[in-house]
């Protein structure tokens, strides 16, 4: 009997040790109508994506554009797509414009797609997003873009991120105000993506500090992170202790099992 228990424990342990993670990233370098967007998010995403697989457990799944049907890949009606959907990944990085936008009287967090900056473009909205409940069950969702974790109106959790996290997402990293990039200095933009990948997969930094340490070189950046727990202090512990290789070992909390939120803002 003891041998069987030992074998089961060994099998479970080895499954954690050799856990593989599917990663994805979306950004844009070619915009609608030949529009030149000098905010070079794709420098960050491309280099993060290419550096992440230095960790043997990484399976690079997709690095794609923000063109149609990207919106549906973020929102709950299409996020289960196993090649392009956010729930088709374990870890996902969006590098592009984001922010807040009122929709039907509710201020949503939004992720911009590939349209130019002159019209009324397409956005993925937080009220249509529920991440972590299908396919690979997204665990870590990062955004290099502005304002999506803003809380000036007090609605970050109750109005915006509560809906997203109730699918089981474990961790989010982003910005509560501006995300800065060099207009043309590709090397320094690239370094942000490389550093975030290295800090996640080699240094084994806590996710919180992997994000901060990667983005802090722009003195005006205003990053933020967030996580859930069964109650507030449980969320706090998860926020402070999650590292990428152990993402899979932290319990998945969905719907009413989410009882608290924790965040960090650098302000």
């Amino acid at each position, binding site marked *: 009997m003891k041998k069987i228990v030992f074998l089961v424990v060994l099998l479970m342990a080895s499954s954690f040790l050799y856990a593989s993670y599917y990663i994805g990233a979306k950004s844009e370098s070619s915009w609608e109508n030949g529009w030149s967007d000098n905010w070079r998010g794709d420098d960050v995403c491309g280099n993060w994506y290419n550096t992440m697989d230095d960790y043997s457990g990484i399976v690079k799944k997709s690095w794609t554009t923000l063109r149609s049907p990207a919106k549906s890949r973020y929102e709950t009606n299409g996020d289960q797509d196993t090649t392009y959907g956010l729930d088709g990944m374990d870890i996902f990085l969006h590098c592009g*414009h984001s922010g807040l936008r009122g929709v039907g009287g509710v201020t949503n967090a939004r992720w911009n797609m590939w349209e130019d900056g002159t019209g009324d473009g397409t956005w993925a909205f937080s009220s249509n997003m529920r991440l972590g409940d299908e396919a690979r069950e997204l665990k870590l969702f990062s955004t290099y873009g*502005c304002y999506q974790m803003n809380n000036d109106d007090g609605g970050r*959790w109750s109005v915006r991120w509560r809906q997203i996290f109730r699918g089981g997402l474990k961790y989010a990293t982003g910005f509560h105000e*501006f995300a800065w990039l060099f207009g043309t200095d590709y090397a320094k933009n690239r370094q942000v993506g490389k550093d975030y990948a290295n800090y996640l997969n080699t*240094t084994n*930094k806590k996710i919180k500090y992997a994000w901060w340490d990667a983005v802090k070189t722009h003195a005006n950046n205003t990053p933020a992170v967030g996580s859930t727990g069964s109650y507030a202090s449980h969320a706090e512990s998860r926020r*402070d202790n999650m590292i990428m290789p152990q993402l899979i070992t932290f319990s998945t909390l969905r719907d009413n099992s989410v009882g608290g939120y924790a965040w960090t803002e650098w302000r």
Partner: protein
Amino acid sequence: MRSMLLTLFIFLISSTTLFADKLDVKGELSYEFKEIKEQSEKSRLNNEYVNLMTVKKGPGKEVITQKLIKHFEKGQFITTKADDNWQISMRDDANVVTGSGWNLTVFNDGTKVNYRNSKYVNENKAKFGKDKEMSLDELKEAGEKFIKEDLKDFVKLEVGEELVFIRSIYEVDGVQNDDGSCFDETLASNIAYFGRKKDGLMLVGNSAIVIVEFSNDRKPVSFYYDWKEYEKMDEQIRISPKEEIDYRISSLSSLNYGNIEHLEVDIICGLYDDSKYVQPACEIQQKGKYFDGKDVGIINVIPAGKKYYSNASWIELELLQEFGDVCRESDITEEIFPENEK
């Protein structure tokens, strides 16, 4: 009696968290950096000439990793003490050392380093998190002391060089229950940003930076530096007049009043390390909204010398060399340049 005391204790604890407020802290620019900014916005660069400098190669990540480990092995807050968990991973682009709750990354030629003791921060977070944050003056003093004493062998200040305290930032941790109750925020760390002046001119465009973090009990727990040594050449570069620099700013900046609403521009002029040479330049920080509401923040580094030395990694300089000054109206300064002026 015991149950009454327990009830009172629970009430006191819960009332503290129930009525806690958003922590009212926000980082700001230092007085000295505001002065540099004001001076730059008024007259760009006052010098007539600057010496061209080249960037020296660092001693290598292996040498610096060993020196740092030795230097901090007996440290209490910044520590590299070896124990059972201690391990080193040597990659092409960086050495990564991890111990119990701390990690050290030394990049490339050893001139860029990141260290963090997250264990100390977490263990001591509750200590003084509700006390007042470190002020600008406190951060400046504590940061300078740490850099000049603990990092003196790594962040070297040559003759004519000085540290410039740039700004404060605060790490604030928060929690709340799903129904919004028990909202609470705690100060986790106080962060000081430093830059560098060479012969009175600020290094711009993230050329030289030191970031020191202090836990909420005011102990140094993390540092980051990107700090190279420079060699002064005999060659001198004449600084362009303000009008000419403005013309280039308009030509080469990513954002302008035509494509952005509520454009805000900050200009800091000085010297730029393009990874090969150090040449006069202005850093242009631009933020605003595209017309569909997209927020955007972009930094450009614009050449400010009459003459310049080409390096393909400085894209604005490449554009200037390839296309010259192409616009007639300054979007940034809102000045109109006469057509025959150039």
